[in-house]
């Protein structure tokens, strides 16, 4: 059973991370609010016309989001949605997606 090793590793990780974060999954949870349109973990359905976010470089995503917020980048809907998140939340979202495959 190949699951044994990763699970054991996760046990250690879980134990280690509990002490120094209120909720270590905040970025994951925030990023999941984007997945309705951009796909689970940022893997948009191919051919759906939606931008995949998985693996996008963090700085690039933050710049795009800043441009949506300021109105510099024209959008049908993202200018309205991006304004609903704080810059700190957008940073967590961009960090999460940059780490996805």
């Amino acid at each position, binding site marked *: *059973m190949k*699951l*044994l090793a*990763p*699970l*054991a590793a*996760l*046990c250690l990780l*879980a*134990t280690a*991370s*509990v002490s120094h974060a*209120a*909720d*270590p*999954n*905040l970025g*994951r*949870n*925030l990023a*999941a*609010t984007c*997945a*309705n*349109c*951009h*796909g*689970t*973990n940022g893997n*948009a*359905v191919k051919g*759906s*016309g*939606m931008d995949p976010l998985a693996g996008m470089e963090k700085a690039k995503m933050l710049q795009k989001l800043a441009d949506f917020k300021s109105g510099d980048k024209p959008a*049908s*809907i993202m200018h*309205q*949605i*991006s*304004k*609903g*998140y704080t810059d700190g*939340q957008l940073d967590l979202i961009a960090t999460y997606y940059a780490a996805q495959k």
Partner: protein
Amino acid sequence: MMLMKRRDFLKVGAMASLYGCAGGGGARGHVVVVGGGYGGATVAKYLRMWSEGGVQVTLIERNPTFVSCPISNLVIGGTKTMEDITVSYDNLKSKWGVRVVQDDVVGVDSAKRTVKLAKGGEMSYDRLVLSPGVDFMFGEIPGLNNAAAQDKILHAWKAGAQTVALRKQLEAMKDGGTYAIAIPKAPYRCPPGPYERACLVANYFKKAKPKSKVIILDANEDVQSKKPLFTKAWADLYKGIIEYRNNSEVKDVEVATNTAVLEFDKFKADVLNVIPPHRAGDIAAKSGIKLVNNRWVDINWLSMESTSTPGIHVIGDAIFPAPTMPKSGHMANQHGKLAAAAILNLLAGQEPNPEPVVMNTCYSFVDEKNVIHVASVHQYDAATKVVQPVKGAGGVSAARNELEGKVAMGWAKNIWADMLA
């Protein structure tokens, strides 16, 4: 992400006990999800994905496949088919290891933490998620309170057999006939949905039955969503076809003559489509959890857990909504993720995330190509203990447009995959 075959399901449970830890931060246990719509399918998949298989999930759903309410108005308008809005539960089983049981839950014992199944037997849970959608208050419209009447005067407000039946009634209607859609007082499922349906039926009439009319009988004082965009579409595209009547609550129906009875007036239609007032799906009341106004479930916004009954989480259209929050499939999906994250924390002995965020987007077709949207973002507010709409965020389309017609179908493909693929 770990994928698991069903035969590995029990092994992982045993293994988790052996190591004193499951994936996803130590959460383990058995979660039963009732209802496999936008909320229930999402919470089932995300519990499995985020716990990396550590939490066992059983999804109990009465239908063999998922049929989407969003996009179903295009089936009624004749430009999409039932196949286009139907998705299998197979990936939830084979890819995510969710145990999908086709059955109905007929009772909940919150003290024993068991649910009772229609086909017999009980199932125990550590946490229960109810995603029951809505049921109709047929008693509010006495003439509609029997099965024969409900077969003739349709709601088509749950996608499935009624979607097909309403389309057939429209196809059978003679040119020069009248289709009337009756909207209940808010809150109801999908605020813009009835106005979208009026547009798409009018779009069909314009092409196939140009002498026909669409009458909107709205129990509310005014259009409930995207008003300037809908009224512009009615004036630009459907002048002389769509007629809007506000403060027109249907109090009763005369089934033999397809007549809607209003307070001071009667209205006879060739196709009468009455959406009755609704409330949380019946299992919510049967489970004994606290309802607001005897209709909607009162929940804690940090966990989607019932305020009255520990261990029962409720998501989707069945809840008493936060300010300006619509009852929508998109929002139910967001509730599902909020609940999944909270349940995994609770099963691991941790507090739920203290700052949840949910958001909504909703696309409405005004013809088969042109679409208008409304969007909002809602952040948890510790002072009111409710998710509140973020001021300055969200909004509607500048004008109807074809680009968003493509985006709307992209939305559908992605949200169906986010729930079920």
